[in-house]
């Protein structure tokens, strides 16, 4: 991206001034090198988002922003329903509520040293992963609708997890306003055998070791100490979310003109929030959020069962569960006035600051945990929402490193076996059904997550708390 086209607001914030059809400016967070490396498409897409009806204050891009579909990945935008604001299927994406949850094991590296290979094998054997895998749970029509309304709460009621987990999930585990009737039979069919499956691509389950603490006070509140072993699960709403995204993208792309919306890019497919299609999408998208929350809850339960076979004392309490691809109705202060806005986060993490009423006690004092995933072999990070980030990004932060190399480029550069062997030499155990998948997801194919997280911290979006390194990675 050409920095000369941007107005520098601070060391870590850059503005694309309002021009042409833009209703608001666009703001991109990151330092000079990160922005220089960003694709020009991020500029173009951040500008396109700024042209949508009802957008409030600015179109934002996080420090890990890259070329997405309509919205940049790492894009955040809020819309006011009463100002003809829109909801965009493209602005949420295909993998609705794809997200990350992290669990404490209360174990240290010495506790798992002799068993980690057997633990990796047991996790790989018991957690369905990869293309074509199926879950152990089959939902009939009634249970499917109950799951789509109930999310992680439904899962806990069915015995997958503990009620104490729910306070540590966004929306306390259940997204309100879901409309299972707005979810097509094809989307439900696609999900029928996929409950409790991890998926493929960049989705994973990792055992991680806390290797660095940046903020001891917040780390203590999060229950984190150096050398703690954690479990992190990264997956989403599986086939159901993908199908909902696909169907509403088409419907919104073809009906936008009926609402007088001019789409600069068909992938920005959207509809007025208050229109029938907008309302149906919100209901279906919220059902998909519940599907993702239930899915991560079931995988948590399967993980606990595996751990119980090795460590009778490991309870695997939930630190937190965040979602990346969502549109949520939230209160935000704009120009000194609190407004109810539909906040799209496309590859961005909600990062509520200290004192936010949506956070449970224990977290409310320090801010929401922001879980930033890495790639096999690279670090992940735990941050906390900051007090001032509402004014910066509607309380949002980055979500991961983002790719720097295409899948094709990665398979030309690495062999899967070579990646597995090199990581084994560094003490990182990989289990995956596909060596080609491993090559496509090689750590070198991703950007430096540390640089992204540093930028998020210095821009004031979220505060660095701890850094973790993988020990075992179960990869789809």
């Amino acid at each position, binding site marked *: 991206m050409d920095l000369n086209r941007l107005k520098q607001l601070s060391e870590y914030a850059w503005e694309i001034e309002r021009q042409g059809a833009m209703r608001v400016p666009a703001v991109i967070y990151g330092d000079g090198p990160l922005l220089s490396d960003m694709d020009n498409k991020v500029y173009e897409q951040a500008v396109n988002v700024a042209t949508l009806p009802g957008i409030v204050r600015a179109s934002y891009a996080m420090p890990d922003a*890259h*070329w997405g579909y309509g919205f940049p990945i790492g894009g955040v935008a809020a819309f006011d329903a009463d100002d003809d604001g829109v909801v965009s299927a493209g602005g949420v*994406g295909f993998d609705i509520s794809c997200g990350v949850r992290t669990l404490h094991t209360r174990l240290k590296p010495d506790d798992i040293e002799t068993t980690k290979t057997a633990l990796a094998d047991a996790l790989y054997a018991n957690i369905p992963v*990869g293309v074509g895998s199926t879950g152990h749970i089959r939902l009939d029509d009634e249970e499917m609708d109950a799951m789509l309304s109930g999310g992680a709460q439904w899962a806990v009621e069915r015995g997958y997890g503990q009620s104490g987990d729910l306070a540590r999930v966004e929306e306390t585990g259940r997204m309100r306003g879901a409309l299972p009737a707005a979810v097509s039979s094809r989307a439900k069919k696609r999900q*029928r055998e996929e409950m409790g499956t991890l998926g493929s691509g960049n989705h994973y389950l990792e055992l991680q070791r806390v290797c660095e603490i940046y903020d001891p006070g917040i780390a203590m509140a999060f229950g984190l100490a150096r050398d703690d072993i954690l479990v992190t699960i990264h997956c989403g709403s599986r*086939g159901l979310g*993908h199908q909902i*995204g696909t169907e509403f993208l088409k419907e919104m792309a073809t009906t936008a003109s009926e609402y007088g919306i001019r789409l600069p890019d068909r992938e920005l497919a959207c509809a007025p929030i208050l229109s029938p299609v907008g309302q149906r999408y919100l209901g279906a998208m919220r059902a998909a959020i519940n599907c993702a929350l239930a899915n991560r809850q079931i995988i948590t339960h399967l993980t606990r069962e595996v751990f119980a076979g090795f460590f009778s004392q490991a309870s695997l309490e939930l630190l937190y569960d965040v979602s990346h691809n969502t549109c949520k109705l939230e209160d935000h202060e704009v120009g000194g006035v609190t407004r109810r806005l539909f906040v799209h986060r496309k590859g961005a993490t909600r990062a509520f600051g200290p004192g936010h009423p949506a956070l449970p006690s224990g977290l409310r004092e320090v801010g929401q945990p922001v879980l930033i995933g890495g790639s096999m072999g690279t670090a992940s990070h735990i941050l906390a929402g900051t007090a001032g980030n509402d004014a910066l990004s509607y309380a949002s932060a980055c979500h991961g490193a983002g790719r*720097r190399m295409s899948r094709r480029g990665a398979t030309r550069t690495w062999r899967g076996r070579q990646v597995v062997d090199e990581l084994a030499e560094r003490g990182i155990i990989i289990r995956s059904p596909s060596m080609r998948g491993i090559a496509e997801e090689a750590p070198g194919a991703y950007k430096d997550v540390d640089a992204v997280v540093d930028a998020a911290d210095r821009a004031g979006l979220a505060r660095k708390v701890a850094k973790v390194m993988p020990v075992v990675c179960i990869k789809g």
Partner: protein
Amino acid sequence: MSAGQNDQARARWEHFCHVADLGVRGYGRTMEEAFSGAAMALTAAVTDPAAVAPLTAVEIDCAAPDVELLLAEWLNALVYEMSTRRMLFSRFQPRISDGRLRATAWGEPVERERHQPAVEVKGATYTELHVGRDAAGEWIAQCVIDV
């Protein structure tokens, strides 16, 4: 493995780069051949199409207001069949008229050991979506797929 030829449909395909995901592109003397090529490129995103035996036929019927959206519909219909039947496809016979596509796709159930499936395709996107003829009159059908 990034390009190939499907003798039966005389459709050719290739992948093109998108930093986060993957582009699929089919070529052909007709729009149908180009659509077959794009479908073959979709399979190649998951596994080597040569390893997929065209044993079982699945019928597909979809429609869209224009040919570009029809390409996305066609690929998304295949994604749906791949997902719900847990199959991979390696031979395609689409017939297109008046904004409607009817097709037979042949394939077999995915076998993890043999196919080593690399990724699950979430959906066909409208990014780099294009259906048209080049200067030499050859048909091209392409888009980025989300994986």
